[in-house]
Every structure is written in C-alpha cells, then in structure tokens.
C-alpha cells in the first residue's frame, strides 16, 4: 500500500471509532465533528447500500465488456487466456485509478474491479496453461491455484483487504493439498501461518487493513490445521482426495486415535488462547471448532438419538449464554477478567433489527401446498422446525 493510502486508512480507523463512540452516546456530535477535523479523510464513503449497488453495477459492466470482447475476438488458440490477462490488467489499472481518487476509492467500484482483476488474472494463467502450453487438466488446476495465490496475495499487499487475504491463503492450501505430503503441510503450515499472523495483529507499523488481513490469514491457517488433524477428515481422506491420482492407503487406528486427541487439543487451544488473549475472533473460531468437534464426536459415538443431541446442545447453548451473561452482568462494573456482556460502541437497536434476517430465513413457516388432500400428521415441521407451521405440521 502507498504511504498516503496507509495514512488515510489510519485516519479512517479513528473516525470509525469516533462514530461508534457517538452511537454509544459516549461523545456528542460536536466532539465527533472535532475528531473528524483532527483526522481528515477526504475520501467519499457512501452508505453500505450505495457501495453494494456500485459493486454490483461495476461487476455487470466488467463482465458484459469481457463477454463482448470474447465474442468479438479472432478465436486464436491462446485467445481466451490472453483476453483474460488483458481484462485482468485493465481491472488492475482501474482499481489503481480509483484508489488514487478520493471520490472513488471507497465507493465500492474499486472492490469490484479488484475482485475481477484477481479472477481474470488467475483464469488467464490457467487458460494459457491449457492452450497453447498444453498442460493436462490436473496441471491446469495447479497453475490456476498457484496464480490465484499469487494474484490475491499481491492484491492484498497492494490494496489491503482481508477478503483477498482469505482467497490467497485458501488457494495456497488447496495447492499444497496437491503434493504427496499435503496433509502434513496443511498441519505444519496451518499452524505456522496462524502463529506468524498472530505477531502482526497489533503491530502499529502495519496498516489497519493489513492487520485485518493478518487476522484473516490466522483464521485460514487455523481452519487448515483443524482440517489436517480432524478425525473425520483423516478417515475420509478429504485432503488426499484433492490430489490428482489414486488415494493413498487408509489411516491406521493408531493414527485415527491420535487425530481424535489432536482434534480436541486444537479446539481447546484455540478457545483457550481466545480467552487468554481476549481476542473475540479466536473465541468465535473456538466456538465454531467446538461445534464441529462435537458433530465429529456424535458421528463416531452415536450414543443417543439425534433429536436428543440437538435439544441437549441447544439447551446447553442457551444455558451457557444465559449463565455467562448473568455472571458478567453481576460483577463489579459489569466486567470480569476484561470481558463484559455490555455492547461496546455498537448501535444495539440496529443490531437487534439486523437479527430479523437470519431468523426469518431459517425459522419461517413453510407455505402450504395448493392441494393437500392428505392432511394427516407428518411431523418434521417447517424449515428447521420453524413453528411447524405447514400443512405437514
């Protein structure tokens, strides 16, 4: 990232923080305005709806132009690959131009052109590997993954975005899965990426967007480490199947037992580190890994029926959340060990409104079928037991 862009990102981080303080009622509008004056950021930043709209429309423009050029092209063997590289290069230039302009940098268009730059450059390399180079399908996939890792990595370094960091790291791990010791590399490099990224999460010399990218790399590394040691992944040879050619011999019982222990250790380690370091991202990752580990356990030890597992797990989640909330809220200053259940600088009313979307998407009743002569009880409910409000429940 250019030095000037980094300075603007730092100012934007302070202004964003001030906006949060204002929404929490800790500072007034006048103080927020004075903070904005102290940390000027001339870049225009529309609301997220405008940014999403711009992203969408720029995407349509880029794809339509690409298709027009493709159909108008002379149809040379290397034509598609070259065209992808040309359009990818044009997208890079467009992103650079937008980043330089205070009116365009944060409008949403730069994100769209950066995304398509990565896609077209990776795709172009893969098409060229196919024709005229003549690599087989497996070789083309390998070239695509390598190009993707490099392109997104470069995009992350230049324009700074955790999304590009995730794309680059994920491509790297899928590339590593294609070599003989893929699983070992996932475990070793997954742990290595997670540990290395952890060192830069608070590094003041890094730009805010690069620190966010480091957090994304840490998450991707942990995901690779967990997939590397997970018992189900080992037994089904999930990583090995990503490699071309025949799958290697199944894992021994000893290895499976060791992986069961490793699954638990990694989960507990991530959760423990999240609590000790007070990092909510690690805590969230730990919670997700705990759920995955419990699902794995249920897969191998089906001691109780599924409904009992679901109800018990749900009740546990509810009770843990209620207990934790009570425990934190009753402490002096409503905080214990640096944790609080209070919302900090978040517009709680807006957050409550946003929850309507996932609830309506998962718990809404099913629509009744137009004609259902057999209306005898067929339990199972609506989507996810959503009130069971359908003709079937």
């Amino acid at each position, binding site marked *: 990232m250019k030095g000037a862009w980094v300075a603007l990102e730092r100012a934007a981080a302070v202004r964003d923080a001030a906006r949060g303080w204002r929404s929490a009622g800790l500072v007034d509008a006048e103080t927020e305005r004075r903070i904005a004056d*102290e940390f000027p950021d001339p870049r225009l930043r529309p609301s997220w709806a405008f940014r999403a709209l711009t992203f969408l429309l720029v995407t349509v423009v880029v794809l339509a132009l690409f298709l027009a050029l493709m159909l108008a092209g002379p149809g040379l063997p290397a034509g598609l690959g070259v065209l992808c590289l040309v359009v990818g290069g044009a997208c890079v230039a467009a992103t650079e131009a937008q980043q330089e302009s205070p009116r365009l940098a944060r409008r949403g268009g730069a994100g769209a052109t950066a995304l398509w730059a990565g896609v077209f450059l990776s795709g172009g390399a893969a098409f060229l590997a196919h024709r005229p180079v003549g690599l087989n399908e497996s070789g083309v996939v390998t070239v695509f993954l390598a190009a993707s890792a490099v392109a997104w990595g470069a995009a992350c370094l230049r324009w700074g975005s955790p999304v590009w960091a995730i794309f680059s790291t994920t491509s790297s791990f899928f590339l590593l899965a294609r070599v003989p010791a893929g699983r070992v590399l996932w475990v070793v490099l997954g742990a290595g990426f997670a540990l290395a990224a952890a060192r830069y999460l608070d590094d003041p010399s890094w730009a805010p967007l690069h620190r966010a990218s480091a957090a994304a790399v840490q998450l991707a590394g942990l995901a690779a480490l967990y997939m590397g040691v997970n018992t189900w992944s080992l037994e089904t040879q999930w990583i090995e199947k990503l490699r071309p050619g025949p799958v290697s011999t199944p894992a021994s019982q000893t290895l499976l037992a060791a992986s069961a222990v490793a699954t638990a250790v990694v989960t507990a380690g991530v959760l423990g580190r999240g609590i000790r370091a007070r990092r909510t991202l690690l805590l969230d990752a730990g919670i997700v890994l705990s759920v995955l580990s419990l699902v794995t356990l249920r897969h191998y030890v089906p001691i109780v029926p599924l409904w009992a597992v679901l109800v018990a797990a749900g009740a546990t989640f509810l009770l843990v959340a209620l207990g934790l909330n009570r425990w934190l809220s009753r402490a002096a200053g409503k905080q214990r060990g640096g944790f609080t259940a209070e919302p900090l600088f978040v517009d709680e009313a807006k957050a*409550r409104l946003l929850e309507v979307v996932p609830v309506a998407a998962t718990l*809404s009743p099913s629509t009744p079928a137009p004609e259902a002569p057999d209306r005898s009880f067929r339990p199972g409910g609506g989507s996810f037991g959503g009130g069971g409000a359908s003709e079937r429940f």
Partner: protein
Amino acid sequence: MQPEVVEAIGALKDKGILGDPPASTLLRVAKRELVSVRFELRALLYAGVLLVTTGVGLFVKENHDRIGPLAISAGIGLAAALCIGYAVRRAAPFTWGRAPAPGVAFDYVLLLGVLLFAADLAYVEAQFRLLGPGWPYHLLLVSALYAAAAYRWDSAVVLGLALTSFAAWRGVSVNVLHGSLGPGRLAETRANAVACGALFALVGVLLSRGGKKAHFEDVYLHAGLLLLFGGLLSGVYARGLWGVWLLLLLAVAVAVAWAAFRGGRSLIFAEGVIAAYLGLLRALFELFRPLHSGPAFFLVVAASAAGVLGLVVAVHRRMRVR
C-alpha cells in the same frame, strides 16, 4: 488492539477534545483490556433456539406414535409457557415507542417461546383437525399471535416471523432459501405476493406515521418490498403480458426510489434501483433479440449498467442519507 486509535485518544485528550471520562474507558477498549462478548452471546442464543426447535420437531416425528398426541402437545405447551412466562416476568411496561430490552437473552427466550407455541398449535390442529378444511387458517392465527407478541414485547424478530407467517398463509414464501415465491399456481402466488408486499409496506408506513412502534417500519418495508418486487419481477420474466408487468414494476420502483431519495433511505433506494434494472434487462433481451449471440448485445448491457451507475452517482451527490 487498534494502535492508531490508542494514539489518537491520547492526542485528543491532550488537546481537550476528549474528556476523562470517557477517555480512560475508550482507551481500555482500544487496548483490548475490555472486550465485549455481546455478539458471541447473541450467536449462542440464536444457535440454541435453532437447535432446540429442530430437535423438538425431530422428537415429535420419531415419537408421536409411541408417546401420544396429548403428552406431546402438553410437553411442548409447558416448554412454551415457561419461555413466555419468563418474557412476561422480565418485560418492560408496554409503550408505543421503543421499549428498553430487559437483557441480551430476552428476545431469544421470547422467540423460543412463540416458536414452541406455534409448533404446539400446528401439532394440535394436525392431530385434532379443529379447523377442518380451513386448516391453513392456523397460519393466520399464528401470524396474529406473533404480531401481538411482537408489539407487546417490542420484538422486531418476532414481527418478522408474523409477516412471513402471514405471507405463508397466502401461499407466498418470503424465505429466500426456498428460491421461489411458493409452491402454488404461479399466477395466483404472484398476485398474492404483490398484494402482501403492498399491504406490508402500507401498514409499515401508516403505523410509523401514527407513531405506533415507528422503529418497526424497516421490518415492514423490507419484507413488503421483497415480496412486491419479487412478484412484479416474476411477472416481467413470465411469458405473455410481460410488458404490462414491466410498466407496473417501473412505476412502483421509481415511486419507491423517489420516496427513498426524499427520505434519505439508501437501502430502499438501492432495492428500487435493482428491481428496475432487473426488469429493464428483460426489455433489453427483447429489444436486442437479433443481437443475442453477438458482442453488440453485451456492449448494450454494459452501457446500460454504466448508465444506471452514473444515475446512482448523481443521486448520491444530492441525497442526504439518514
């Protein structure tokens, strides 16, 4: 930690822009000495409700022959009563304004209670056939109960369920996961979607103007516009009188975008623009049908998107986002 924010707080305090408090609290948060787990608690509560309701559905499916309808309905009813009892005990007094949330768990315990209650009602109706051939009316009843609970306990989440249940009664699915308007006859479902959408949007605006839970307006409007535009677009992309549907869609989308522009509602403006553009794409396909396989058609599509983009940029310059 946010190093630039930590540094800024010190500088702002030195310049007298930030007092203390709140500077020391802000500094603790910026240094990650104080961390909120509010989001994690909410995620756990939501996952808990999802798992329990799914588990209960599965339990009934696997055991209703063995345990019997009376015991099952009594069991679910008791669980629902416990949750709703908690809500009754903890709730703030009723107000037409925004009621303070009694705690992070309140919304979710209430949600679990009303979901279990609705499940129980549906189970009883399916077992004892109380409504006879009018059995879909239980969805209307559920919707009304959800709406009453939403207004009494000031829950936007439960109001969302009330609206989706009402739409389900009319055979329309608001659930985007379903990928279609509903399983019924398309023309009928489309008409129902348009009618429900218009009704939701109208009720939302009227209640908001009347000062009755004005903060629920967003839930009404977004659910309403989703159905309204979904219904109209399904007409635009159908065979037959697509031109009429397109004119209708454009009229509604322009009206919505104009109202959103005047009210500074950027998300609703975006919904109007996207709906209008999707409709216009059908017109482009029809107008340039002979060019479909050539590059000129895609140049037209690119130019149209660029044109809309220019319009959006121009509108953004003049719009005062709320």
